[in-house]
């Protein structure tokens, strides 16, 4: 039915099967959209956030997907600026995943901030002393860059590319793509850092507070490192999932192994940095402010096991797996390493956001916990559904993997 829109030589599932696949995601997206509308119109009362838990599920989700979406800028940086041309095979996916992650994060953030008619205040009445201002500016700019990077991929759709002016536009945009890759890398480095720095400067919350270099606490650098470590892993997992669902070989296996190894090397660096940071925090920073690290780990929900889990099971273990040249050649190890890396970063963002707020900061305070409401889940799931829909449609109608047909044919011949 829609064959005329699908690139020549690419096999895609039947149109109605595709519609059936999209249906549940559309329902989820509709639920999210309706809830978003209500929250924007009537405020955040239905959520379980309050003056203690000002950052809830949405911020944890935002921090996680922005880190996962870091593959877009980092792979762009590696491909265009470090001349790793073989990564071109996954670059389209990285751009779309990055676009989904950043646009999804902005939607969630917009609901969280509320007061949509005053959204422009963030730009016009900017507080230059706030890390959040840097985040707002960088994310907005980077979303524009991602959109510019997405347009050439769309313009190469079978129906669009036969319009000569579109192909000429794509050609001219492609020529300056290295510039956008550079700008994207610059912006992303800074806002990933600012997101971490936002917690590190909270000197009223000793669980999160860190010292650092100049105005930048160590969390600034840890967030950058962790994001560039997890980005390639997430792209690798996405490609493997799509490959599994569509039952097609989309990229050469060594590209996936390369992504895994890049992740492994960066994760190892991150874990070493994180270990040093934790040791300095326990033995220097905390005693300096009159605290003992043990005070933060005697609560039922957040014991020492959380720290242990983050550093070992979701840190050292995947780094060890992905650093091994032979293991990254095997799908099972690659998937295990990738999943553990992604879970590790999600846990880190969870700990930084939620555990920080759960800890009492005053003598009359007590440990508290927060559980998100159904409205908060609805917005989150709506964004996830939007991502799945956008990627699915892109995979069907755009030629995301330049070597797909060639690899599929060689598979058929073997």
């Amino acid at each position: 039915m829609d064959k005329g829109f699908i690139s020549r030589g690419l096999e895609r599932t039947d149109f109605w099967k595709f519609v059936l696949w999209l249906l549940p995601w559309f329902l989820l997206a509709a639920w999210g959209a309706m809830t978003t509308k209500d929250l924007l119109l009537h405020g955040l009362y239905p959520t379980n956030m309050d003056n203690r838990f000002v950052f809830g599920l949405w911020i944890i989700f935002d921090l996680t997907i922005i880190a996962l979406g870091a593959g877009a800028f980092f792979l762009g940086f590696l491909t265009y600026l470090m001349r790793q041309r073989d990564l071109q095979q996954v670059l389209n996916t990285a751009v779309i995943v990055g676009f989904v992650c950043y646009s999804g994060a902005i939607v969630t953030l917009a609901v969280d901030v509320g007061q949509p008619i005053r959204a422009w205040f963030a730009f016009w009445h900017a507080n230059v002393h706030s890390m959040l201002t840097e985040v707002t500016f960088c994310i907005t700019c980077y979303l524009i860059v991602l959109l510019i990077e997405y347009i050439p991929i769309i313009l190469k759709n079978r129906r669009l590319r036969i319009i000569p002016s579109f192909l000429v536009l794509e050609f001219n945009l492609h020529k300056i793509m290295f510039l956008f890759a550079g700008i994207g890398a610059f912006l992303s480095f800074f806002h990933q850092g600012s997101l971490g720095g936002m917690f590190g400067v909270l000197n009223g919350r000793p669980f999160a507070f860190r010292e650092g270099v100049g105005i930048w606490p160590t969390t600034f650098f840890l967030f950058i490192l962790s994001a560039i470590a997890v980005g390639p892993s997430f792209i690798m997992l996405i490609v493997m999932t799509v490959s599994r669902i569509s039952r097609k070989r989309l990229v050469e296996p060594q590209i996936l192994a390369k992504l895994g190894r890049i992740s492994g090397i960066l994760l190892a660096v991150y874990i070493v940095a994180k270990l040093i940071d934790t040791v300095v925090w326990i033995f220097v920073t905390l005693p300096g402010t009159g605290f003992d690290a043990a005070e933060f780990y005697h609560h039922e929900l957040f014991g020492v096991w959380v720290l242990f889990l983050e550093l070992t099971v979701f840190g050292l273990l995947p780094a060890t797996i992905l650093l091994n040249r032979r293991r990254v050649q095997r799908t099972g190890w690659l998937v295990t390493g990738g999943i553990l890396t992604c879970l590790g970063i999600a846990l880190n963002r969870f700990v930084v956001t939620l555990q920080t707020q759960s800890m009492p900061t005053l003598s009359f305070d007590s440990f508290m916990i927060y559980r998100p409401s159904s409205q908060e889940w609805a917005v989150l799931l709506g964004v996830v559904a939007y991502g799945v829909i956008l990627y699915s449609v892109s995979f069907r109608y755009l030629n995301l993997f330049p070597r797909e047909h060639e690899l599929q044919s060689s598979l058929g011949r073997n």
Partner: protein
Amino acid sequence: MLPTAYEFNWDLGHVIFFGVFYGILTTVLVALGVATFRWLADLRRQTATAIEWEKTFQDLPLERRHCRHEFDGTVTDCICNHGFDCASCPRHPEFIEAKWNTTAAVSAPVELRLPADRLYHRGHTWVESGPEGILTVGLDDFAERCFGPLDHAVLPARGKVLQAGERSVVLKRGSLCARVSTPVAGEVVEQGDPEHGWLYRLRPTGPTPWVENLLWGSEALVWMVHELDWLQQNLNSAGETPTLADGGTLVDDLVQAYPDADWDRIWGQVCLDVG
């Protein structure tokens, strides 16, 4: 946000922060402006055809980009990086020189009409020179058999000036569609009919020798053998019985003979169109 806003202070923090932010925003806008300017300039200069060809050529699978000099045995495993434009290839003169010392084994395993007085384009069209320098363009035998009987053909109107590589002919059969390239630049002087064996006649334009990129003689014959090999592989990958292995006659309507093959892709690649 701007010096006009009441919170703005001329201190280092504000200047650095907004300086960097506006610097980036300006760079993005200037880059977009440059891209837009180049886009409009390219459209004005009518370079769309050349750009489309360049993009298409980049997207062609390597198996479709073999150098013509492989066909005459001058080189082996040579992939063209010049859009089949031999004039722009620095090694072309060297290959031409070497060609005279090489004898390629030429044999046609399948009966295909390849008249020796015609020149052949890699997009499966032929060019025949006529009186007063008028050229006749048609589909070669290979393409005709791949396409079979057509439902509809859109041909360039008389008087239209075509650029080399321009997709000037659209052929349709059911849901299949092929966009055929123009082998040489020129002005259309007569419209033909695919059913009668030719597409159009044109008066060539442009100062460059128009035959440079076209194949002829034994070179065209070996190329055709390669094309048959390629077709055979593509029909085999569709799960069909191997064909054409050691000679025989290619059937007139391959689409009908092999209905399960990926004809959408084959048609595209016959015309060097990947879109």
